[in-house]
């Protein structure tokens, strides 16, 4: 039997995670579509311009009121500040007035002309994020237009029941008026993940699906709808079954979120009491705060290449020291693992990657480059040793492929310390030294390398690339880039065994460490520390807390009996699927 309330599922873009179920509230903000064009007599032009300026001022006052009313902690107030600046922008404000004067037309028409031209420029852009930026300009122009024509605005602040907002588009000004007591979530026809509406939804922590194209035409006010901001779908007129399913999902998600937030700062300890340090990888000093918020136990990989990009000369020791010191001081007493330059610096300065060398991955980079450019290397080593006097620093040498390289690097570190002593600068030479294990030769020579270092850090991305001879950027072979390849797992185990035997620590800082389904394996292998993108820390901690290390050790034996990456993956899924399945919510 067919009814007019058939369940409809529409797919959009998941802009903010979460699930809400409720009544739709349609907000129609398309009041000003038809713009009339008419001529203005020369004597009336000053008045027309005055009328335009008054409309801009009104928009400005409205925005200012909203900014003032917004609680300080709302991160998006600065979007509104940008809108205030846009109101007086030469290309919008100045040009509209120019057209009014030059062509003797009404302000609405002049504004429309300016905006249409701008939209055309934006539409031709290829970068989706920048393309979306036209919405800021359009929203500002819309607000002036509404004040020019006197069209009514929807007053979102006046909504008096708990609803889900449905709109063609929401301006930041509109979204900031959202009353969290009343609005459970929202969906829009326009917008993308990077649009401000999405950013605001995430900062308000309410579910949102955007870019649905025709939500406003397929949903009517008071329709019962489900917004699934995790998978980016909206269900209109859900059936009883669907409702039950989503009620459960909603509860699961809320519990999951509560747990994650509460526990992200607590240590990652397995069910049998083994504690693992879960660290973050960073590139910029600014990332430190996110890392602390996500509960990172330290920095397992501080990439230092960034300061060598986009300039014509090498950064000075002072510059480097300043940056390192910032990070080290904020993190103190937690460790900061500084990896020395991992690129070809000459090329970075010249901005010429992939030039000259036909095979840069196998070329002059990282430690090879540094040893060839002692002055560049020494400046960095001195900066690191000086930063080490301000907190807990470890140094990590990348791309070690022979013992000779490691000894040379250590010798230069000693020289750097001696020169600092001579210069009377404060420094600390008594820091842990580590070697990146990312070249197969280093795996084979691990026992010898171990004699010269305090820790190993496995860089899985390069190790996989070099071991399996796979260029990930090459579409033809990218699918063969398999962290779970038995060859890789045996290598990891070998390195970890050597580390244990030589009583040094073993860390991992590649992508593999931040992937939940690799964790049982890595625990079984016996990693002391994992380092990853800061956002994934809470999730990895959660997985570790659900695992028993003794069990993962016997699990590892089963894994080592596998002969393909696929069967290994299946085995992980079969054994730990229930722990890992909660993952769906982290997307």
């Amino acid at each position, binding site marked *: 039997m067919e009814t007019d309330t058939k369940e409809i599922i529409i797919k959009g873009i998941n802009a903010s995670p979460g699930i809400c179920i409720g009544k739709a509230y349609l907000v129609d903000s398309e009041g000003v579509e038809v713009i009339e064009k008419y001529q203005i007599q020369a004597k009336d032009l000053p008045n027309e311009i005055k009328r335009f300026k008054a409309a801009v001022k009104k928009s400005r006052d409205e925005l200012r009121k909203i900014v003032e009313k917004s609680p300080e902690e709302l991160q998006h107030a600065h979007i509104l500040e940008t809108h205030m600046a846009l109101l007086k*922008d*030469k*290309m919008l404000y100045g040009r509209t007035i120019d057209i009014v004067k030059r062509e003797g037309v009404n302000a609405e028409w002049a504004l429309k002309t300016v905006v249409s031209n701008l939209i055309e420029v*934006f539409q031709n852009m290829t*970068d989706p*994020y*920048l393309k979306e*930026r036209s919405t800021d300009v359009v929203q500002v122009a819309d607000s002036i237009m509404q004040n020019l024509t006197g069209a009514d605005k929807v007053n979102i602040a006046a909504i008096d029941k708990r609803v889900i907002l449905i709109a063609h588009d929401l301006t930041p000004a509109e979204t900031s008026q959202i009353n969290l007591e009343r609005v459970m979530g929202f969906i829009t026809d326009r917008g993308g993940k990077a649009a401000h509406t999405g950013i605001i939804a995430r900062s308000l922590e309410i579910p949102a699906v955007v870019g649905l194209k025709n939500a406003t035409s397929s949903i009517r006010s008071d329709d019962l709808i489900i917004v699934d901001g995790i998978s980016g779908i909206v269900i209109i007129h859900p059936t009883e079954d669907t409702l039950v399913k989503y009620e459960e999902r909603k509860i699961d998600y809320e519990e999951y979120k509560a747990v994650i937030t509460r526990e992200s700062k607590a240590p990652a300890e397995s069910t049998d009491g083994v504690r693992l340090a879960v660290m973050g990888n960073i590139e910029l000093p600014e990332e430190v705060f996110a890392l602390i918020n996500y509960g990172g136990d330290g920095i397992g990989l501080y990439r230092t290449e*960034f300061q060598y990009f*986009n300039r014509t000369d090498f950064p000075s020791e002072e510059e480097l020291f300043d940056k390192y010191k910032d990070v080290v001081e904020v993190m103190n007493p937690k460790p900061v693992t500084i990896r020395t330059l991992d690129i070809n610096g000459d090329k970075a300065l010249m901005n010429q990657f992939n030039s000259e060398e036909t095979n840069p991955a196998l070329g002059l980079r990282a430690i090879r480059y540094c040893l060839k450019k002692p002055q560049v290397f020494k400046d960095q080593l001195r900066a690191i040793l000086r930063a080490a006097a301000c907190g807990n620093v470890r140094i990590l040498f990348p791309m070690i492929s022979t013992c000779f390289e490691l000894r040379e690097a250590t010798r230069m570190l000693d020289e750097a310390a001696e020169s600092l002593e001579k210069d009377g600068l404060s420094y600390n030479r008594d820091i842990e030294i580590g070697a990146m294990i990312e070249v197969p030769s280093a795996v084979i020579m691990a026992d010898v390398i171990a004699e010269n270092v305090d820790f190993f850090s496995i860089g899985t991305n390069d190790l996989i690339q070099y071991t399996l001879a796979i260029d990930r950027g090459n579409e033809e072979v990218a699918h063969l880039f398999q962290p779970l390849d038995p060859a890789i797992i045996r290598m990891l185990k070998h390195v970890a065994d050597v580390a244990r035997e030589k009583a040094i620590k073993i860390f991992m800082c590649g992508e593999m460490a931040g992937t939940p389904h690799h964790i049982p394996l890595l625990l079984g292998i016996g990693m002391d520390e994992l380092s990853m993108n800061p956002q994934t820390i809470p999730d990895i901690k959660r997985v570790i807390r659900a695992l028993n290390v003794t069990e993962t050790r016997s699990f590892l034996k089963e894994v080592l009996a596998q002969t393909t990456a696929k069967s290994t993956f299946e085995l992980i899924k079969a054994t730990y699927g229930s722990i890992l399945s909660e993952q769906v919510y982290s997307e």
Partner: protein
Amino acid sequence: MSNRKSALRRNVTIINELGLHARSAAKIAELANQSTSSVWITRDDQKADASSIVDILTLACEKGTRIEICIENKVDLHILENITKLIESGFGE
């Protein structure tokens, strides 16, 4: 002569993840608006008025884009430096 001229321009690369979007453009425009003469941003053969957010946005500078900032009067050198620093710092994002 050529030395004099190059003193009034700086080459920088956009490093922040989101490129020159409205908020970062607004920060540049705020600085450029304090100058005595014009401040220009050039990308390839396109030139934009640095005091206009909209004009900056039309250059569509995503992450990795190299741009040149140029001033017309050396009394604005500090503004040139400040804008360069702002971009090089990734707008503190």
